[in-house]
């Protein structure tokens, strides 16, 4: 049990990082959620290790688990719930606009030009070259 929770947290965060590095938006969102689950277990462990004598307001016989990390986790859960909802809407919208949920295809899609004035200068590519993206590496080849 001592080792189980840290291993579980490590597993969740590892799976999350693996998923975040993948190219599909939905897997990326799942990865972010996995990371936040792992993080929550990690915070739980911060209160697990040490038995506090008593919670500040109760006069009952101990030992107690520290209540504070659980309060922190509640806050973190609420925040990650909201951000996950936002990410899902964002992915859905990206899919509606572009018809793809692949990160690379999303990045390669040129910016739309609209309105009476065409402001894509012939010398300026309509998508400005990005620094340090996978596209640059692909062109230059591995070093």
């Amino acid at each position, binding site marked *: 049990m001592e080792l189980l929770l840290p291993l579980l947290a490590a597993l969740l965060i590892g799976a999350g990082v693996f998923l*975040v590095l993948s190219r599909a*938006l939905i897997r*990326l969102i799942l990865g*972010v959620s996995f*990371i*936040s689950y792992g*993080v929550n277990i*990690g*915070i739980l*462990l*911060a*209160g697990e*290790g*040490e*038995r*506090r*004598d*008593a919670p*500040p307001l109760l006069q009952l016989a101990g030992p107690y688990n520290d209540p*504070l*990390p659980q309060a*922190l986790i509640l*806050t*973190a859960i609420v*925040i*990650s719930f*909201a*951000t996950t909802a*936002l*990410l899902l809407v*964002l*992915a859905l*919208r*990206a899919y509606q*606009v*572009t018809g793809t949920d692949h*990160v690379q295809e*999303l*990045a390669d*899609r040129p*910016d*739309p030009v*609209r*309105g009476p*004035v065409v*402001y*894509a*200068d012939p*010398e*300026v590519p309509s998508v*400005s070259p*990005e*620094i*340090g993206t996978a596209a640059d590496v692909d062109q230059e080849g591995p070093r």
Partner: protein
Amino acid sequence: MNVLALPVLLPLFGGSVLLMVRRSAARRWLATAVSTATLAATIVVAAHVFRGEILVLQMGSWAAPFGISLVADALAGLLLLASNVVALLTVVFAGSSLQHAPVRGDSPLLNRARDAFGAQALLQFLFMGVNMSFLTGDLFNLFVAFEVMLLASYGLLLLGGELPQLREGFKYVVINLVASSVFVITAGMVYGLVGSLNMADIAERLQAHGGDVRVTVLAALLALVFATKAAVFPLGFWLPNSYPVPPAAVSAFFAAVLTKVGVYALLRTFTLMVPAEHALGGLLFVLAGVTMLAGGLGMVARRRWRHAMAFANVASVGYLVAGAFIGTHAGTTAAVYYLLNSIAVVFVLFLVAALAERVAGPAYRRHGHLGLYPWLGAGYFTAVLALAGLPPTGGFIGKFALVRSMLAAGGGVHVAVATAAVLAGLLLLYAATRIWREFFWGEADAVHRVAIPKAMSGVTAVAVALLLSLAVFAGPLYGLSGTVAGQLDGNAAYLAAVLVPGAPPRTGAH
């Protein structure tokens, strides 16, 4: 001091009411009124802390290690004041730009939709998060403040749902979420190690952990998070593409203030909580030197107004972080003075870029605008002098003081970073001069003059005037920076102000 809660509460209430107001004109006036009131509250706070006091508000009268403390020292007061001045100007500029839909660039319909879907309210929530990050004295509350700030910024960045917004917004959201996850688990581990989340209490308890490698790991994790927010070199790759995406007024506020929140958190961590982690400070100092060069080179490479200005912002973050981690009193003083200059100059540059994009589209290679818009040229010229660090602007004073204190600190690393600072200044000057040559000089490409709304040009004029006043009142402001740096030299005064001696001892902690 209950006034400490006002910079957080006023934008919260203001933003909530703004969500319910239906008329666009009413929203504009209400947002301006709320931001003016917030600014007034921060002036009251600043008037106290600039005399050297440290204001503390224990929320709900829970004594320091148990409750959440709001703390304002001189650094927090200075940043609160600067960011709320910028906030008020942003609200006026945003109101005007939403009202007068841009002629080119974004379609008018989209801008009205942004207004209707609560861009003004989201701006107020953003200000709330920023003010809370400056004021809070609690590590977990700082995480919450960051999240409030970031959620509002996601909304502002994504409102409109166009392709560039979706693409850059997705990166921005995911990177910030991962950084937040690291932050919150670090807060948890800090609690596990020392049994407290109050920053002053953490600082006191960590003094007993001298030389503990776990403290170094925690400090490194915090540095990683805050350096990502501040866009320090290898971690700032997300910034230059995402900041130009939202509406102009919003990206001006993002650039001028949000990166500085990261710098503030770095300063707070390394002066208050872990003042003994010199090796990490040295690493950040070197990275800051690289950040300056990366910013300068990036600005040379970019062909669009706000993309170039975003890199100028990265470079100015480099100068700030370098100054903050010189580790001498003179260095911190210079960094604090340059902080004011950096906020003002980046804000002016983004406003000028907004007006230039309004009249000529996002790419700046459109010659001959000086004759049509002479005052825009004057504003840009002033900002460039301050950005490159040429007299007679505050940028010169700040950069001169930074480089001099780096050289005075001695050591090969300091000399190398000072060289990088001078080189980056030249790069910024070159990039800015090229924009001057390609946009303002030459035969006029423009066929007709596009009207600039009075409120937009007025806000830009006020911002330029503030930028110039940094040089005019350099003496008193530099003295004030000295006061701020004096408080950052040691954490004893902060600890004494927050941790009340009569508070009952915590049970069960080691």
